[in-house]
C-alpha cells in the first residue's frame, strides 16, 4: 500500500517536474542581450491546421518587416523582436494567447489574426490591455463594428469584398444564374452571404446556396447538385483546402463555367490541389498582386531569398501591417523623447495613421479602424500557376 | 402455503427451447433444490424468475402476484434476491459497500438528501452501515469489511454474495450453485448457513446445485430438469431412486445395466 503511494507520488512529481522544467524559459526579457531595451511584436495566426499556409504567410511577412527595420530601432537603442503565436484558428487558444501577450509588457502590438472568429474574442483582451492590433486578413464586419479602440485592419471588409466580387460576376462576367457554396465557417458564411445579397440586388438569380463540411474531400453531392442547376457561375466562400477540391470536382462534372471565390483561395495551395482545373477560376482578394508594382517585385524576390518560399497573398499584407505598427511605434518613441512608449500611445499612434504607402496600396484608418484605402482585387487563373493574373482593382 | 408459483413457464431462444412448460409450487419457508445435468436450463429458469430474461410464455407468481413483465430491480423489490453461478460481485467496491448496495431498494436515502446532508438520510446511512456490518458478521466476513471484493478468496466471495442478497431483505432467495468449487469442509459450513437463514431469517430458499450430497441433505423438495423440461419432482428420497433422473444424469441404458 505504502509503496504504491510512493510510486504515485513519484510519478506525479516527475510529471510536474517535466512541466516545470519545460518552461524554464523565463519570460523575463526586459533587456536584450546587449543591454538594449526590447520591443516585441507578436503575430497571432494559425501556424497549424487547415489554413496554415495563410497564417504562415502573415508570420513571415511580419518577420521580413522586422528584420528590415531592426537596424533603425537599434539606432534608437531598442532591440526589435518577433514573437509568433499559433492561434490554431481556435478562439479559445487565441484568447489564451492574448492573455499571455497582454502580460508580456515588452510586446507593443499584434499582427493578426487571420480568422475573424478568433479576432473578435481575442481583441476584447487587447482592448483591456490597450494593445494595438492590426489584422491583415480578418474581414468580418463585426471585427471593427464593435468600435474597439485598438482594433484595426488593412484589408477590405466582407461587405465590401463580397459585393465587389458580385459586381464583377454579374456585370463583367455576365453571370445570370449563380450557385453559391460556402464552408459553414465564420469567414466563408460571412463572405458568401455578402456576395449573395449583392448579387441578388444586381439582378442575378441565386439557383442554390449550400454548405459543406470543412475537412472533407468528397463534395460531389453538392457539386452534382450545382451541375444539375446549370448555373453560369459558381461562387465559393471558404478556404483553399476545400475550394481546390470543389474546383476539381466541378471540372470533372463537366462544369467549365467560371468559378469564383474569396481571398482565402488566393494561395499557391489552391493551384496545387486543383491542378489544371484551376483555369477559369476567379477570385476576389483583399491583397493585390505584388508583382504588378516595382516595390512588390523587389519584395517578392527578397521574400524568396530569405525564406525560400514564394509570396502568398497575405505575405505583403503581413509585411505592411507590421510596417504600419512599427511606424506608429517609432512616432510614439519620438513623442516620448526617445523612451519606450506606453501601449496606449502606440495604439493611438496606429489609429492616427492616415496615409501609409504599403507595397501595393495605401493605408489610412478611419475612426472604426477600417482602411479607407482598402481595395478589392479581382484575379483570374489562366493557367495552373500561382499567382493568378490581376483583372481589376476596385476601390470604394 | 405456496410463496412462489410457476405455471407453464417456457423460454425460446430463436428456435431452441431452453425451458418448456415448467410448473413449480414452492412452499413458504422451505428449501427447494432444482437439479439437472449441465445445460438442462436451470440458470435460464432463475433468469426468468429474476426478470433477466422475459419468458416466452407462462406465469410466475410471488404471493399470488405476477412478476412477468417487471424489470429485474422491481423483482428484487417484490422480494426475490439471488446469487450467481459465475460470481458477480462488485469487484472494485469494498466488502461492506457490496452489502450496502444490496440494501439499495429499501434504503431511505435519496441523492438529494445526501447532497444536503439531511438528518433523515444521514441516520438511514448510519444504520445501514451498522446493519451491513452485522450481516458480514453473520456470514463471517466482518474482519474483511474494508477489503476490495475482488481480492477475496473464492469461498469468501460466495459468502459475500449471499450476504449481499440477504441485505435486500428477500422473501425468496435463489442460490445458483452456491457450493461450486468448495471443499467438503466449506460445503458443510454452507449447509449450516442455509439452514440458519431459513430458520432465523425466515427466508424461502431455492437453489441450483450439483453437489448431490448437499442437495439431498438440505432440500425439502427437489425438481429435476433435463433438456429444459421438468422430468421429475418430489422429496429427496423419491428423486434418489427415480429411473428417469438416473437416466438423465448417466445416459440411456444406465438404469437397465444396473
Amino acid at each position, binding site marked *: 500500500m505504502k509503496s504504491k503511494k510512493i510510486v504515485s507520488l513519484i510519478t506525479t512529481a516527475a510529471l510536474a517536474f517535466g512541466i516545470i522544467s519545460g518552461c524554464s524559459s523565463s519570460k523575463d526579457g526586459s533587456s536584450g542581450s546587449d543591454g538594449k531595451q526590447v520591443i516585441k511584436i507578436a503575430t497571432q495566426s494559425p501556424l497549424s491546421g487547415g489554413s496554415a499556409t495563410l497564417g504562415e504567410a502573415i508570420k513571415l511577412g511580419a518577420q521580413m518587416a522586422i528584420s528590415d527595420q531592426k537596424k533603425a530601432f537599434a539606432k534608437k537603442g531598442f532591440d526589435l523582436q518577433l514573437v509568433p503565436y499559433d492561434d490554431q484558428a481556435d478562439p479559445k487558444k487565441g484568447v489564451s494567447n492574448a492573455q499571455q501577450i497582454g502580460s508580456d509588457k515588452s510586446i507593443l502590438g499584434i499582427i493578426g489574426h487571420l480568422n475573424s472568429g478568433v479576432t*473578435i474574442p481575442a481583441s476584447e483582451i487587447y482592448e483591456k490591455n490597450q494593445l494595438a492590433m492590426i489584422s491583415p486578413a480578418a474581414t468580418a464586419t463585426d471585427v471593427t463594428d464593435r468600435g474597439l479602440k485598438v482594433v484595426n485592419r488593412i484589408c477590405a471588409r466582407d461587405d465590401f469584398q463580397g459585393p465587389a466580387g458580385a459586381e464583377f460576376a454579374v456585370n463583367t462576367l455576365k453571370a445570370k444564374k449563380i450557385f453559391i457554396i460556402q464552408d459553414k465557417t465564420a469567414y466563408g458564411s460571412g463572405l458568401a452571404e455578402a456576395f449573395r445579397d449583392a448579387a441578388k440586388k444586381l439582378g442575378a438569380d441565386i439557383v442554390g446556396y449550400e454548405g459543406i463540411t470543412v475537412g472533407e474531400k468528397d463534395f460531389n453531392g453538392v457539386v452534382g447538385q450545382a451541375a444539375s442547376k446549370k448555373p453560369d457561375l459558381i461562387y465559393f466562400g471558404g478556404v483553399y483546402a476545400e475550394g481546390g477540391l470543389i474546383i476539381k470536382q466541378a471540372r470533372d462534372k463537366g462544369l467549365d463555367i467560371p468559378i469564383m471565390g474569396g481571398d482565402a483561395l488566393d494561395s499557391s495551395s489552391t493551384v496545387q490541389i486543383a491542378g489544371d482545373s484551376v483555369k477559369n477560376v476567379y477570385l476576389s482578394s483583399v491583397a493585390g498582386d505584388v508583382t504588378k508594382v516595382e516595390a512588390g517585385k523587389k519584395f517578392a524576390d527578397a521574400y524568396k531569398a530569405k525564406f525560400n518560399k514564394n509570396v502568398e497573398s497575405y505575405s505583403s499584407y503581413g509585411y505592411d501591417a507590421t510596417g504600419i505598427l512599427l511606424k506608429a511605434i517609432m512616432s510614439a518613441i519620438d513623442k516620448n523623447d526617445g523612451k519606450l512608449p506606453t501601449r496606449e500611445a502606440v495604439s493611438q499612434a496606429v489609429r492616427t495613421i492616415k496615409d501609409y504607402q504599403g507595397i501595393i496600396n495605401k493605408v489610412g484608418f478611419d475612426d472604426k479602424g477600417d482602411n479607407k484605402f482598402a481595395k478589392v482585387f479581382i484575379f483570374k487563373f489562366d493557367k495552373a500557376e500561382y499567382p493568378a493574373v490581376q483583372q481589376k482593382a476596385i476601390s470604394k | 402455503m405456496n410463496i412462489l408459483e410457476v405455471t407453464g413457464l417456457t423460454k425460446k431462444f430463436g428456435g431452441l427451447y431452453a425451458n418448456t412448460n415448467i410448473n413449480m409450487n414452492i412452499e413458504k419457508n422451505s428449501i427447494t433444490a432444482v437439479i439437472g445435468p449441465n445445460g438442462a436450463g436451470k440458470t435460464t429458469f432463475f433468469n426468468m424468475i429474476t426478470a433477466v430474461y422475459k419468458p416466452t410464455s407462462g406465469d410466475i407468481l410471488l404471493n399470488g402476484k405476477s412478476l412477468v413483465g417487471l424489470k429485474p*430491480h422491481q423483482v428484487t423489490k417484490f422480494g426475490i434476491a439471488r446469487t450467481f453461478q459465475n460470481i458477480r460481485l462488485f469487484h472494485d467496491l469494498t466488502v461492506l459497500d457490496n452489502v450496502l448496495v*444490496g440494501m439499495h431498494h429499501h434504503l431511505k436515502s435519496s441523492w438529494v438528501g445526501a447532497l444536503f446532508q439531511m438528518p433523515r438520510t444521514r441516520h438511514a*446511512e448510519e444504520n445501514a452501515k451498522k446493519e451491513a456490518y*452485522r450481516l458480514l458478521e453473520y456470514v463471517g466476513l466482518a474482519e474483511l469489511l474494508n477489503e476490495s471484493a475482488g481480492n477475496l478468496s473464492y469461498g469468501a466471495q460466495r459468502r459475500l454474495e449471499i450476504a449481499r442478497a440477504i441485505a435486500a431483505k428477500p422473501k425468496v432467495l435463489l442460490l445458483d450453485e452456491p457450493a461450486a468449487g468448495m471443499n467438503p469442509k466449506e460445503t458443510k459450513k454452507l449447509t449450516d448457513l442455509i439452514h440458519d437463514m431459513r430458520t432465523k431469517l425466515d427466508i424461502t430458499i431455492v437453489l441450483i446445485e450439483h453437489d448431490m450430497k448437499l442437495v439431498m441433505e438440505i432440500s425439502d423438495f427437489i425438481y429435476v430438469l433435463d433438456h429444459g423440461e421438468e422430468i421429475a419432482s418430489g422429496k429427496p428420497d423419491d428423486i434418489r431412486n427415480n429411473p428417469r433422473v438416473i437416466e438423465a444424469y448417466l445416459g440411456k441404458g444406465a438404469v437397465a445395466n444396473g
Partner: protein
Amino acid sequence: MRKLVDLFSKNKKAQLLLFIVYVAVSSLSLILAQQSVVAFLLLLFSILLLYFLKLSTKAKWIIGLVIVAVLIPFSASQGQAYESYMDVATLVGIYCAMALGLNIVVGFAGLLDLGFIAFFAVGAYTYGIFASAQASKFLHFGHFPLSGESFWIFILIGGIVAAIFGILLGIPVLRVKGDYLAIVTLGFGEIIRIIFNNLDKPVNITNGSMGIASIAPPKIFGIVIANASQFYYVALAIFLVVVYIVTRLEHSKIGRAWKAIRDNEIAGQAMGIPLVKTKLIAFAIGASFSGMMGVVFAAKQTYIDATSFTLLESTTILVMVLLGGMGSVPGVILGAAVVTILNLQVLTEVSNWLNQLNTNGVISIPDALSPAKMQRFIFGLLLILFALYRPKGLIPAKNQKYDVNKLKKSTTKSVFVEPQVSNDKKASGGSEI
C-alpha cells in the same frame, strides 16, 4: 535513507513545517519574479503536496482554500502577468469541473461518453443567446440582451438545460452498451455541434457559423466582471460546489449504485438498482456541471461559435479523467489541471522559447516540430502509456474505509438476526467457511 523517509512520512509537524516553507518560498518567488511561469506552477504544485500531507481532511481543506483563494491571486497580482495567470487558473477551474462531471459518467458509472463537450456547448449557447442581441432574432417578446445580472441565474439555468439534454441523450442511448455507447455519444456530440453551427436557418437561433458576439459580461452589485482575475473567483466558487456535490454523492447510495453497475450491471440490477434511472442521474448531473461551466465560458469569452466544441475537446476531457485516475476525485482534478496547464501555458511557452532560439540561430528546429502543434501527439502518447502501464491514473481511486469500532456500537435493534455463533476469527480469513 529509507528510514528517514519513513520517519518523515510519519512526522506531521516536520511535514507541515516543510510545506509552509515550500509555500512561502514559491509564493515569494512569484511575487519577486512575476514573469516566471515556474514560480507560478510551483505554487500551484503546493496543492498537490498538500493532498499527500498527513493532516486531517478539514485542515487540508482550510489550508487549500487559503492558498487557492488568497495566496495565489495575491502573489500573482503583484505584476503584469496577473491576468494571464488568472486566465489559465480560470480555465483550470472550468476544466476541473467538467472533468469531474465526466468522471461521474465514465469513472463512477462506467459509461464511456465521447460527446461530453456537447453539454458544455449547450450551457455556453444558453447564456450566449440570451445575453446578446441574438435572442431578439427569433423571439418577438422581451428585451434582449439580458443584463449581466442575469448571469447568476443563468449558471443554474445552464446547468438545468444541460441536464435535460443529458437525459434526452440518455434515454435512447442507454439501450446500447459499452463500445456502442462510446460511438453513439460521439455521434451525439457531433450532431449537437453541427446543429449549432447550422441553426441560422430556417430559424436563426444560434447565428450559425458566424457565432454569437458581444455577450454581456456578468454583473454583481453594479460591478462588471470582465477580467480573468474576477472570473477566477466565479470559476472557483462553482468548482468548489462541484467538488462538494461529487464527494457527497460518491459516498451515498447513488454513488454506490453507480459503481455497482459499473462493476457488474446484471448483479446491480439483481440487487434492486434501477438501471435506467441510475444511469440517467449520472448523465444529468455530469452534464449539468459542464453546462454551468459553459455559461461561465461564454461570459468570459464574450464570443462563442461551434469551433470551440469539437471532438478533440471531448477527448481532451477524457484524457484528463484517465490521466488523473478514473473514479478518483483528487486524481481527476490533478489530471484536469495538468492537461490544461500543459495545453495553454507549457506548450505555448516551450514553442515560443524554441522559436526564440530559432530566430537567434542557436538551434534549428523545423516548424513542423513546434510543441504547440504536438497536442495530439502528446495526448495520444499519454493515453497509450497510461492505459498500458498505469490504467488507474496518477492518483488511483480509493475506497472509503469504514471504522469498525463505530459500526460495532450498535444502538438500534437489527432487522436481521444477531450474529451466528459460528463467527470465529479463523473463518473470517476467507479460506474456509
